[in-house]
C-alpha cells in the first residue's frame, strides 16, 4: 500500500501534463494541417496545378462566352441597322413615287378663275417646275406622279388631273428650293411670259411650309422588274 501512495501523486501530475500536452498538440496539428503555408511542396504543387487548370478552363469559357456575346450583339445591331436602312430606303422611294404625303418649302402657283387656260398650260407649268428642281408637285391637291394624267375632258368640258376635275382658281404647289422654283418660272421667255401672251397672270408665292397629299398607289398588272444580272 505504501508503494502505491508513493507513486500516486507524481504519476497523476505527469499524466495530467501529458494530457494537456497531447490535446494542445492535437489542436495545433489540426490547424497545422489546414494551414497552406505548412503543406508539403508536392501537395502545394498539386493544388496549384489543379487551380491553374481550373483557371485556364474558366478563362477559355469566359473567352467563348464573350465571343458569343459579341456575335449576338453584332447580330442585333446589324439587324437593327439593316431594318433602319430598309426603312429609310423605302421612305425615299415612297417619297419619289409620291405615295406618301410630303411637306417642305416651295412655291404655290395660283391661276385665277377667269384665266383662259388649257391643260397644256398646266403641263408647261409642271414641266417648268420639274426643270427648276422641284421635288414634289401637286395640282389642286392631286399629286403629280409618274402615272399622272393631265387632260381635257371633252364631255365634262373641264381639265382633269388624274381623272379628277380641276376647279378654278387652280393652285399648283411645288416643294423645292423656293428661289430656284420662283426664278425658273420667271425666266425671260419662260412659262410665265408665255402665259402672259394669253393674258394669264398666275400668282407665284413662296412658302416655307407646304403640305402635299399622297397619290394613290400605283397598279402594276403587266410590268415586272428585270432581274439584275449582277445579283
Amino acid at each position: 500500500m505504501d508503494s502505491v501512495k508513493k507513486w500516486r501523486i507524481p504519476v497523476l501530475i505527469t499524466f495530467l501534463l501529458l494530457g494537456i500536452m497531447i490535446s494542445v498538440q492535437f489542436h495545433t496539428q489540426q490547424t497545422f494541417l489546414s494551414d497552406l503555408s505548412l503543406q508539403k511542396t508536392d501537395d502545394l504543387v498539386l493544388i496549384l496545378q489543379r487551380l491553374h487548370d481550373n483557371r485556364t478552363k474558366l478563362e477559355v469559357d469566359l473567352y467563348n462566352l464573350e465571343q458569343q456575346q459579341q456575335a449576338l450583339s453584332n447580330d442585333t445591331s446589324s439587324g437593327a441597322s439593316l431594318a433602319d436602312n430598309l426603312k429609310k430606303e423605302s421612305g425615299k422611294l415612297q417619297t419619289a413615287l409620291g405615295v406618301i404625303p410630303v411637306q417642305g418649302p416651295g412655291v404655290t402657283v395660283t391661276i385665277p378663275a377667269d384665266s383662259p387656260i388649257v391643260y397644256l398650260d398646266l403641263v408647261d407649268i409642271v414641266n417648268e417646275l420639274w426643270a427648276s428642281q422641284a421635288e414634289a408637285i401637286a395640282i389642286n391637291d392631286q399629286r403629280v406622279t409618274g402615272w399622272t394624267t393631265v387632260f381635257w375632258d371633252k364631255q365634262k368640258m373641264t381639265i382633269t388631273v388624274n381623272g379628277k376635275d380641276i376647279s378654278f382658281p387652280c393652285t399648283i404647289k411645288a416643294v423645292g428650293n423656293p428661289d430656284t422654283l420662283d426664278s425658273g418660272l420667271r425666266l425671260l421667255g419662260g412659262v410665265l411670259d408665255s402665259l402672259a401672251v394669253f393674258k394669264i397672270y398666275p400668282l407665284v408665292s413662296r412658302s416655307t411650309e407646304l403640305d402635299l397629299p399622297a397619290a394613290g398607289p400605283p397598279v402594276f398588272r403587266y410590268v415586272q422588274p428585270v432581274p439584275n444580272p449582277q445579283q
Partner: protein
Amino acid sequence: MWLPILGLLLGIGIGSALAIPIPGIYAKYLSVAVLAALDSVFGGLKSIIEDKFDGAVLLTGFFTNALLAALLAFLGDRLGVDLYLAAVFAFGVRLFQNLAIIRREMIANWLQKRRLSVQEAKKNG
C-alpha cells in the same frame, strides 16, 4: 489504478478547454516534447511495475526530457541538422522498449499470480 487514466482525461479536458494557440512552426517542437513526455510516462509505468519507482526521477525526467527534446529539435533546425529526427528515433525506440518490458512484466506478474493461486488451491485441497 484509475488515477492515471483520470488524470490523463482531465489533462485532455483542460487542454481542449484552454485551446492554447501554438504557432505552426513550433508545432514540430511540441510534437517532440510530447513524444519525450510519453517516453517518460511509459518509463514511469515500467518502474512501477518493476518496483523501482522514484517520483523525483519521473518528474524530472518528464520535464527535462520534454524540454530538452524540444530545445534540441529547435537547435537542430537552427544548425541545419535534423536533430528532430534523432529525437523521434531515440524516444520512439525507447517508447517501444518500455512498452515491451511493461507487457512482459505484466504477463510475468499475471502468470505468477495464477501459479500462486493454483498452489494455494492445491494446499487447501
